[in-house]
């Protein structure tokens, strides 16, 4: 069994987990919950199996927890799906309308991700938010690289349809 200094792991990989979760969830409270859930899951995984790469494992667990939380948000009608922090101050080089457009697109993409199948959403996030290669994603998820490519293509198609439909309505 591995001996893991979790304090060091949290300090070293915490920022990556935080960034990934915040990009997907968009607010501080959910991100903090997702952060803790991710490391607790990592602890459970480390007890069951040998962890080869913590960044990849934490990226996978973070995206999975964040997508679960997005779905939970979509299922509960009382919770608004576009709760985002207002603390983000726009830079001086970005126009306000561009900022609004970017926020709307990000919210739409989060809603669309919540409606995708779990594996497709996870592959999409690992590829485009964590910049992982097909091979790394396939290795981490225990599938073939070709399968990962096919699932990613399906995810892109569904997301594009959803975004175009949302843009029309």
């Amino acid at each position, binding site marked *: 069994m591995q001996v893991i200094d979790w304090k060091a792991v949290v300090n070293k990989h915490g920022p990556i987990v935080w960034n990934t979760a*915040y990009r997907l969830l968009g607010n501080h409270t959910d991100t903090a919950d997702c952060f803790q859930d991710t490391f607790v899951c990592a602890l459970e995984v480390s007890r069951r199996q040998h962890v080869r790469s913590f960044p990849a494992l934490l990226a996978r667990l973070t995206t999975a927890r964040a997508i679960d939380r997005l779905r939970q948000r979509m299922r509960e009608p009382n919770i608004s799906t576009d709760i985002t922090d*207002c603390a983000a*101050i726009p830079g001086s080089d970005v126009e306000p309308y561009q900022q609004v457009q970017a926020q709307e697109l*990000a919210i739409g993409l989060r809603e669309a991700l919540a409606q995708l199948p779990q594996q497709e959403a996870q592959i999409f996030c690992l590829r485009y938010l964590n910049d992982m290669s097909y091979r790394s994603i396939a290795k981490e998820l225990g599938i073939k690289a070709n399968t990962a490519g096919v699932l990613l293509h399906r995810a*892109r198609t569904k997301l594009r349809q959803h975004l175009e439909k949302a843009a029309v309505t």
Partner: protein
Amino acid sequence: MEEPKDILDKAIDALANTDVPPGPPHELTDATVAKLKEAGPPAFLRKQEGGQDEFKTIRFIDRIKPTKGLIKFAAAAVLLIACGYTVGRLSAPKSPDIEQLRSAIEPAIRQNLLQEMGQYMQVGLVSGYAQLKNELQQQYRRDLSNFAIQTLAASSTVTNQRLQELIDAINTAQTQDRRWFATALKQIENNRLQDKNQLADGLETLALQTEDELQRTRQDMVQLLSYNQPSSLNPEELRNPSNTNERSKK
């Protein structure tokens, strides 16, 4: 020329470039580490807890080992300083008259101090002014940007609401038009059926009358051919040919 991105790529860019506040906060990392500790160490580490103190002792000894030389050096330095201080105190000349010395140097010190304070205050005021101006400018820009974002979001919401109302109104008007159109078609159909019935009745009446008239004409023709006076004609009618014409008109 750069190709225009489709909506998915734009959305990916927007999501990937989301402004993430610096984190995670220390409280969160501490809470997470505490939670992980609460979840408990692995079993084999729990078994080794008895040897933990020994491990700590060894680590403490190892830690102070490189500082032993430093402690010796510090003690020697302290001893040398103390010796120097004692020699200096013993060999120092008698102290000068403090009051005389103070009165001699006080005006010069005061003058220098005033000049330096003036310069210092001036530099501080100038830098403070520039910093304040810069901060106010940034604050003003942030406020304006926030206001613009909120205004755009609010106007977008109101526009969507108005568009929805317009769509509802158009749908209602179209439904009303369709209803009127159906009513008119129904009325036309009713009129047509009524006209058809009237026409059928008229034609039937005409056919019956025509048949009666033909029957009567046929009887008249038979009587005429048999040289008999038609029973339907009066002698008056035979004398007056105009009556015959009237009958034929009938």
